[in-house]
């Protein structure tokens, strides 16, 4: 399956085609079935190597930090292994991701998800506005409008139907502090209707 077919699957072929992924055309040309063959885990690893090689191909500059850059130690947001991430930040922009060779658990290892962590921030698919569906269409609204309307509706439901008419599906993808606030929020709201992915 070629990439142009992916665009078709999305039902937005031309538009999508214009934003083709160019990471590794060799991989893209491979058929879907080959890709998901038993070596796909290794394919992920191979991509990592290629990304690294590409970076080093840029020469000495790639090895040295950009002037004025800082390196931030962080943690991958995918699985619970907890791999270290060294993020190079320049002028408030995450410009490069370096392996964390000296992290005691991951020791420089990344799977393909960890290797592409930067796209969590840079993906053009990220939402950048609160939105509301009106008449079946998405409308951009301000944060204040969104939060005001949501709070009013929640309060009305609470008054008419009681606090247990609201359910919160929280998250295993937020910090422990935020997870704690989610549970605390449900308590202060007045309901035990709160749960998250650990249940399943």
């Amino acid at each position, binding site marked *: 399956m070629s990439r142009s077919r*992916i665009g078709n699957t999305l039902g937005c072929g031309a538009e999508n085609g214009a934003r083709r992924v160019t990471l590794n055309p060799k991989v893209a040309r491979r058929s879907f079935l080959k890709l998901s063959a038993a070596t796909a885990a290794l394919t992920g690893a191979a991509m990592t190597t290629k990304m690294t090689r590409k970076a080093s191909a840029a020469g000495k500059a790639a090895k040295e930090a950009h002037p004025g850059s800082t390196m931030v130690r962080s943690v991958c947001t995918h699985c619970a292994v907890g791999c270290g991430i060294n993020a190079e930040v320049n002028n408030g922009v995450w410009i490069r991701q370096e392996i964390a060779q000296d992290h005691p658990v991951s020791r420089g290892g*990344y799977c393909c998800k960890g290797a592409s962590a930067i796209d969590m921030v840079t993906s053009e698919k*990220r939402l950048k506005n609160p939105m509301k569906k009106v008449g079946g269409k998405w409308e951009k609204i301000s944060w204040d409008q969104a939060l005001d309307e949501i709070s009013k509706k929640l309060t009305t439901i609470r008054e008419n139907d009681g606090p247990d008419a609201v359910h919160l*599906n929280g998250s*295993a993808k*937020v910090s422990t502090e*935020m997870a704690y606030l989610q549970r605390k929020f449900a308590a202060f709201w007045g309901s035990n209707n709160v749960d998250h992915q650990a249940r*399943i």
Partner: protein
Amino acid sequence: MTNSLNDMRHAKSLIFIGSNAAEAHPISMQHILHAKEVNNAPIIVVDPRFTKLAAKASDFVRIRPGTDAAFMLGLINVIIQNGWQDKEFIETRVAGYEEMAVVAADYTPEAVEEITGIPASETVRIAKILATNRPTSLTWCMGGTQHHIGSSITRTFCILQLVLGNMGKSGGGTNIFRGHDNVQGATDMCVLSHSLPAYYGLSDGSWKHWCRVWDVDYDWMVSRFKEKKWMNAKGFTLSRWYEGVLQEEKIEQYTPLKAVIQWGCGSNSNSQYHRVKRALDMLDLYVIIDPFPTMAAAACESDNVYLLPCSSQYETSGSVTSTSRQIQWRHKIVDPIAGCKDDYEIMAELVKRLGFADKFYKNIKQVPEDITLELGRGSLTIGYNGQTPDRIKKHMANWHTFDIETLQAKGGPCDGEYYGMPWPCWTTEHPGTPILYDISKEVTKGGLPFRNRFGLEKKYDSSGRTENQLAAVGVANPGCEVQGGYPEFKDVVPGTNWKTDLSQKTLKEALRRGMAPFGNARARCVVWTFPDQVPIHREPLHTPRPDLIEKYPTYEDKPNHYRVHTRYKSEQKPDLVKEFPLVLTTGRMVEHMGGGAETRSNKYLSELQPEMYAEVNPMLANNMGIRDGEEIWIESPEGGKIRVKAKLTERVDEKTIFMPYHFGGVLMGRSLAGNYPKGHEPYVIGEAANVCTNYGYDIITQIQATKDGLCKVSKA
């Protein structure tokens, strides 16, 4: 995990059941393969499917989905019959062993073969490998839990390790690989409908404890609820919340659900997803808070949906707990991208508008550090109090000083401490507990006995025998004042115990005496509050072997199971297999994560795995005239029906269909691409496997049974 990923380097054998670490936890493999290559440790993989982990194994055991408990009991039985059990460990640190052994005796290798499909000789052979290569590290994941007897299956894993004496030892342990990056931390904080943070439960005492931590009046807290009884009642769960909207099942609440907030949680990880979709359409208010729209935004086709773009976790900061119980500080890399707010800010804005900000943020000025301190102050049960933000950040800054083999810092500012101060970390001087229940170390240096949680003695229903629940004489950590079992600490500060003494004097007193605050007891094989006091096999609700229902029936129906009536016996229909002859199981792929909202919006990962598929055995496919790459329909007994490509492979046997569950954006043959906000549809969309996963929920936890349902397949 009782041990850590790094500690698996010391295993002499490893057994994985319902875990595909090579794909789901790839970076753990360096430690696993170290054990294989350096210690010559056999790796045994038990799975219905020949996974990528199985490809790295020394021994692969193909098992019929949902029969793990039978196989484990079979191993336990063979071990006992041959006298391979760790007799000293059992006599001194285990309770209810005799009662358990009587149950396990029914699971002869031949009986196990009949249930699981594993040849009798294999059960004996695997038992011998485990007996002769100790310690064994045992790992399970959702393949072990997502069954209607998941809570029994996981107990058989633990009992096997107790029988072999592999608990509390380096290279041993029950090492559950957790899924999401902070599912351990979120579980510890109990974003769960049956407990307040740190597993305190929902009793009045628990509410009073947390009200003291929050510094709010208990009576005010009561006033927030409809009536006091709802404070103590378990709420709806992630597995079945939508029943509270649909009201097609009997629900036990005074009102249906009218509003749902979905905060950092992909909806398409729910089984029977076509029913979830119907519930979404009926809500008065649905709020999705996520960096990406998620499938929910496309699946919900009514109005009254709001999308709030929170930042990713790289644009905020806080602690995260890894599968090894290590707490790391996830430093903010960049500010939230334009237009987004981080989770803390969204919460603050909501709470302000809902009118309880003054009480909610009473102790919290600096975010997130003051939250870390507050949750630590209350989470004494699991020792989250010793890991202050300063200490966690110090570990991050010095992660290079920790030894790979022991995870202990060699010199430097963290000298002697264990990386991430694995909980319990009882005081701000404690180094963390790298291996749970390890009595070879002093408690102040990371040692721990088994917890005394279930009384001092017990008379068993099955045998009438009474047994002391405390550890035997002679079992104690070095430096302990008492050479043997002892109960949990209480009344050091009158009227409190080690869990509720916010002054933490009790914890300090226990440690001063070289003792564990929670006592020193035996690990129990009998749980007298569960329907199966000793775990047994019960046939999956939707079983391909109706002939086994009579001998291994499911439970009676359970009314009011987390506010929903739940069917067991009335759902176990012997004729179902005639129409739905194939077993459906699901799992992960390395390129995607969870419901895939993030990874399918990542251009690199989308390119690597661009399409949904189902694995079909060539024998089955050839008999049905299905060619590799052709589209097929997969249909569930609940009316879920999806159209996917067939991938012909012998990874699955001819009775089983496997699907990855990361895809979304297509619903029962219909593309929902146009339903996403324009430009925000993921790069890759596909049918959600969970449309076809079946009805079925664990009797204790209500985890959904997505690994052992039935389906039928036809050419599209």
